């Protein structure tokens, strides 16, 4: 069942069309990627979901019911540009945001302690925000976003500003939150993280949806009958009437051969021919990276 749905959302700023008939459907307890080049309309959609601004037309549903103003308590939002009061102390600030989200002071305190310990920033509690590094600030902001345990979490570019170590920590936290029942929507340019985290994606370009579906399905679809064969040692394969060899790479004592089928050949037959060429280690459909797909789709549209 879809936890969140947007149906035919259109939004116009003056003469500028920000979103045109965009629909998304986010299954419960999944991670949903919102992709697209800069200025595509991602942030507008996120703002509409957060009810910061209203759509010109279209409908939004949370758990099958129309989204209403009080639902903000069920949504946690991490904006792209980090928003913290620079002169305010970290702990006080986190408490403030928690209270704005409707937690009592006491409850907020208990949860904050838990999270500050988990993300190892306890010693920063009494420091002013301006004394913190960007990554630290982001951790604080991350905590304030998830603290009230909303059903729906929205992260706008959650990884910018993090070093690889901390990026990994945040990734794991997002996966952990999903395990605990949260549904996540996040927008990013980081395609690596999309492959790792996302169950489904929507690709928005120039206010329109141009690609949508589960990450695996999309990659398979774009694989377009290409396969990767990995052999031990230095191996060469020749093409035949059923397939062409696209390229051959040598990588630390292994040969990786990519072929593209030209007829309706069964993969078993390819494998049986291949085993004659050398010691076959693996056979996989060649999934293009989300990065490749992103670039190809956007460029073909422009």
């Amino acid at each position, binding site marked *: 069942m879809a936890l969140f749905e947007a149906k035919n959302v259109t939004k116009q700023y003056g003469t500028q069309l920000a979103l045109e008939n965009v629909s998304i459907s986010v299954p419960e307890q999944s991670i949903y990627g919102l992709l697209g080049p800069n200025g595509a309309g991602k942030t507008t959609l996120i*703002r509409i979901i*957060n*009810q*910061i*601004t*209203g759509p010109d037309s279209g409908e939004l549903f949370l758990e099958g019911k129309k989204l209403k*103003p*009080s639902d*903000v*308590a*069920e*949504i946690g*939002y991490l*904006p792209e*540009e*980090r*928003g*913290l*009061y*620079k*002169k*305010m102390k970290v702990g006080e600030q986190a408490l*403030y*945001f928690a*209270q*704005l*989200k*409707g*937690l*009592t002071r006491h*409850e907020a305190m*208990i*949860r904050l302690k*838990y999270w500050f310990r988990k993300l190892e920033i306890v010693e920063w509690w009494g420091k002013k925000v301006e004394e913190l590094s960007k990554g630290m600030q982001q951790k604080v*902001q991350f905590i*304030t976003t998830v603290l*009230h*345990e909303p059903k729906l979490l929205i992260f706008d570019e959650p990884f910018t500003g993090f070093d690889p170590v901390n990026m990994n920590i945040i990734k794991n936290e997002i996966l952990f939150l999903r395990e*605990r029942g949260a549904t996540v929507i996040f927008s990013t340019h980081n395609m690596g993280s999309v492959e790792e985290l996302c169950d489904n994606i929507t690709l928005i370009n120039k206010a329109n949806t141009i690609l949508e579906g589960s990450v695996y399905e999309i990659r398979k679809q774009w694989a377009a009958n290409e396969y990767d064969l990995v052999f031990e040692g230095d191996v060469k394969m020749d093409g035949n009437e059923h397939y062409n060899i696209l390229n051959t790479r040598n990588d630390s004592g292994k040969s990786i051969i990519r072929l593209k089928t030209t007829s309706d050949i069964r993969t078993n037959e390819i494998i049986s021919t291949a085993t004659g060429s050398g010691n076959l280690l693996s056979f996989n459909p060649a999934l293009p990276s989300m990065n490749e797909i992103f670039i190809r789709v956007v460029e073909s549209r422009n």
Partner: protein
Amino acid sequence: MNPGTNKKAATEKRRTMNKIPVIIKREYLTRVRKKSFIIMTILAPVLMAALIIVPTVVMLNQGQDFKKIAVIEDGSDLFRTAIPNTKEAEFVYLEGVKLNELKTTFEQAGYYGILFISPEVINVPNAIQLISKSQPPIGLLEHIENSLEKEIERQKLLTYNIENLDQIIKKVQTRVSVQTIKIDAAGNVKETSTGIAMAMAYISGFLMYMLVFIFGSQVMRGVIEEKTSRVVEVIISSVRPVQLMMGKITGIALVGLTQFLIWVILTIGIVTVLKTTVFQKTSVTGVTQVTTQNLMTIDQTGTISAKTAEATSPEMEELAKFFSSALNQPWGVIIISFIFYFITGYLLYASIFAAIGSAVDNETETQQFMLPVTIPIILALMVAIGTMQNPESSLSFWFSIIPLTSPIVMVARLPFGVPFWQLALSMALMIVTFMAFVWMAAKIYRTGILMYGKKTSWKEMWKWLRYSG
């Protein structure tokens, strides 16, 4: 899972809880805890008290610093008894002493200075010199000038050969002081002082200006801070923009009231403490020294005849008059009106400032919007100052009715007495206007606060005002 979580109960609470108090609390506490706030709050009353106390102390010290002055006349003997001694100075008439000799020795001889009067003084008024090592106090100079003027006048009159001249002069000498009496609608007569009314008009008008302007622009800075740091996006996703705006405006208003109250209490406290220590001394010395002072020190406002002046200190008399006049002011109306105009005036301007803050990306961009807002405030202050000269002018009347200027001008008019219908009209207009402005500001704010990177124009703001959604 987090400990202590009862999800259903928590969710229920979230929905019902009003978040404006949370916002007000933050706005209030972060400002009140600032070092600059604490310093200003403590320092200002100290300065105020110093402003009140220091002149008194200086006056007293001047009195205690007794001066002996040598008087030399060049060849004539006209002013031997012209200058009476005062509590501050003794005038010693020296004969047969050369000015040039005394110039080098007067200090050793124990004189503060030399008053040299040349015989041309009858015709040339500036033929008098006071020679001293330090700048003589203004009071001493006035005393000398007054005394010599009188003597010269007397001697000039003598040349007309009028009989019994001294008696005639004594008879015609009069002292005039206008006593101001206000009659209220019920016919009660109250003695007032225009000086007090003017001082109060000035203080309340200026205070209103400061409070509205300083705290109004604090609202603007707060809004800009939230906008540029993007905090607003986080907050707007949990509370409505209007709630955030009103929370901020209310929080800062409370900061203003807090500071104002502390100022009043501290100033009164410091002045009372110092009064009990300093003024007590005054009253003792004041009474004992009166007789020597005689006519010279009688002021413009006092109605003291020469006889009564001997009985009581003119300063005390003046002080008593000051207090009775101050007490005769319609304090109830003034205080209630002041609070009314502060709240409505502040709300009006703070909402304009909030709207401006929401429309710009940084503080430098506020210039173009600030000017049209500053103009009525400055105009109001100027008219308020004019009001002190002429409270009944039509300019003062109109400016005290028009809502943008009325908070400042009306409080300046109040000590002079304002007809009830004018006050009522001004207040009614104020209420309508401030509500309209808050409503408009909220609309602009709601759109502006989330607009980035575009330079906002007046036209743009007008468009935001008309957005429905």
